[in-house]
């Protein structure tokens, strides 16, 4: 079971890695005068905060939707859901969103993996 999840995640990480390289290259060419470290940080920010959480949540469709389309859905979910959750949590707690945004993204990634696990269990 865990082996199966690991296998799926490793496969999925390949497309994420490819996308990351593409993003990084695009930023590097466009911001050619910018510090390399800043370019790396901005690419990591996009991926960690939005794209990976969104993609992770869409893992539940791993056997229904092809990978590239899941990536597209994941991009939408990441940029759409994460900011809304931050806003909603702020509405309840009145805590500055900058203090918990990275944890929310981390939690979304974890939830995505758990949902994948339950999808596989459900299938079996």
């Amino acid at each position, binding site marked *: 079971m865990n082996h199966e999840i690991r296998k799926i995640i490793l496969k999925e990480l390949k497309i994420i890695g490819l996308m990351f390289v593409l993003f990084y290259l695009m930023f590097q060419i466009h911001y050619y005068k910018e510090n390399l470290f800043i370019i790396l940080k901005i690419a990591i920010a996009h991926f960690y905060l939005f794209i990976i959480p969104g993609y992770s949540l869409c893992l539940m469709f791993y056997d229904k939707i092809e990978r590239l389309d899941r990536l597209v859905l994941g991009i939408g979910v990441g940029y759409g859901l994460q900011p809304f959750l*931050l806003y909603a949590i702020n509405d309840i707690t009145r805590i500055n969103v900058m203090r918990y945004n990275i944890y929310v993204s981390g939690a979304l990634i974890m939830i995505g993996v758990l949902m994948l696990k339950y999808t596989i269990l459900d299938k079996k």
Partner: protein
Amino acid sequence: MGVNDTNKEELELKFKTDFFKKVRLEFVLLVIFAIILLKFISVFDGGLLAHPAPYNHLAGDMFNIGIYADFVKYENDLATLPFYLSQGVKNVVNIFSMTGPIITAQLSQFTGIESYDFTMHISLLFIILSTAILYIFLRKIDNKLALLSLPLSLLVFKWPFQYAITWGMHMSNVNMIFIVVSLFCLFYLDKKYIFIVLGIMNGAGFLSHARETLMFNTGVALYFLVRLIKEKILINLAKNPASIKNYLKENTTIISLKNYIYSVPVMLIFMYRYFPILGSFLYRKSTTLLYGTNQLFAYLPQTKTVSPNVFHHVFFPHFLFYQYLLVIGLIAAIYFLIFKNNRTADIILSFSIMILANGFFSIFGNKTAQIRHLWPVLLIPLVGLSLYMLNSYLKKATKEKSSNLLFAAMFLGIIIITAIYFTPESTSDYPFSDPYTWDAIKWIRLNVENDAKTLILFGDRHNQETMFYLTLKNQFRTNRDKYFEQISKNIISSKVITQGVIFGEFYVRVNNTIVEKDRSIFSNVKESLCDYNYIYSDKYSQIPQVQTYVIKSLEKLIKENNFVVVYQNDLVVILKNNDIGGICFEDEVLL
């Protein structure tokens, strides 16, 4: 092992070789497109992400995102406007679309770069991502159609379309990604749980910029209508209502429609904050009048009699030769919708037709016709369709010999023509804000007390007042016309007509209910310069009369009143008042 098996293997080998050839050609053409794209977008930020001041911000709306992103970064309550955006009034409800600012604030925090630098970054990134997503969707229909669609998207970087990037349509640009991802949700809507993703996309769209989401949903309505008619579902249901049970189990359109309805509650969860004030947006006066003489229709052809020439508006002639491809594409799309039975094509063509149609109407309120600035991205399927048809026609005419070569030549030809006619020119680096102004704004941020009032005197480039909201302090500005009147009289006066923040909507929460208030109560108030804690002014003006007047006023404040210079650089000077509310200098005739 027979003869048949060998043939099959050979066929497979042939197929694979052909496939790799195609993939390689597609890859090469995509790389060429990417090079042109990178060249086009290079004019927007001078090769840098971080700039010493808001860069290429050509209008006040550009500054809004940076302001609200800083609001997200520094404040604890996002539902209530901070004092510097509400002129000190408490409990003012924040109704600004917050998705873009929250994304911007996080990127700014993560990289340590100022928020304003991400306004351009996000606009460009989201436009490119949206184009790529549409391309991936169009590949489901045909690879060649998808590739031929791409060149039109380059127009978005050329004036007047680039208004979307440099004049502050940031929220629409953010929303664009949600509406193009929604197309994929429609494609998979018969699958279990996809309605949740569609709900998230629609909800995020409403929080980003509701109008485009409404427009997308008119496309969804057309798609379902077309499918229901084509599959004769409506007729069958009218004859036999009990057949709905079978449809709900087996028919993709009905299952999709059911799931679309399921997505609505998910979307409503996103909108929970906006329910109390939703009604007020529906009767907002439209500005589409500026596009034409008719209140409902915004005329497309730009003529002197019908459409007043507002320089940043988009009309069909701005598309040059693409306008004819758009018209042909539109006719072909309508033909396909009626006579062909391709679900994927129905989704994307319904969407494009309705996005085009919505550019003529003002039913969704203020500035609806601004969608035209994003037509180069959102209408790529129409141009792709007409070019694809042209390619098919040429292929037949040449008897299908070397069709890939023909296709590549056609793609490259269009890219080259687009590059010749639509390469954007570099714009002014710092049209309003510059490093001196930004340095002064930062000084105010760090040194001015929260309860202090700062007056911004008239400056040549101060007409985009939102730039001063970046001070994150309570600030007022002199009314430009009234100030000019005063200067023309040649009398230096300590009395000035001032105005506060200009954001239109103003809702205050009073005892758990929300009351709408008129923000104009802060406008055109006659006040004394000595009522302010700080006076901010440019030292130079291109109008000599203004410069003399301003400098004399500042000198009088220092000599005759209790003002001292607390900050200055080559352009800006800031005075501090040590006797707030004291008696100010008397009027003096300027010789």
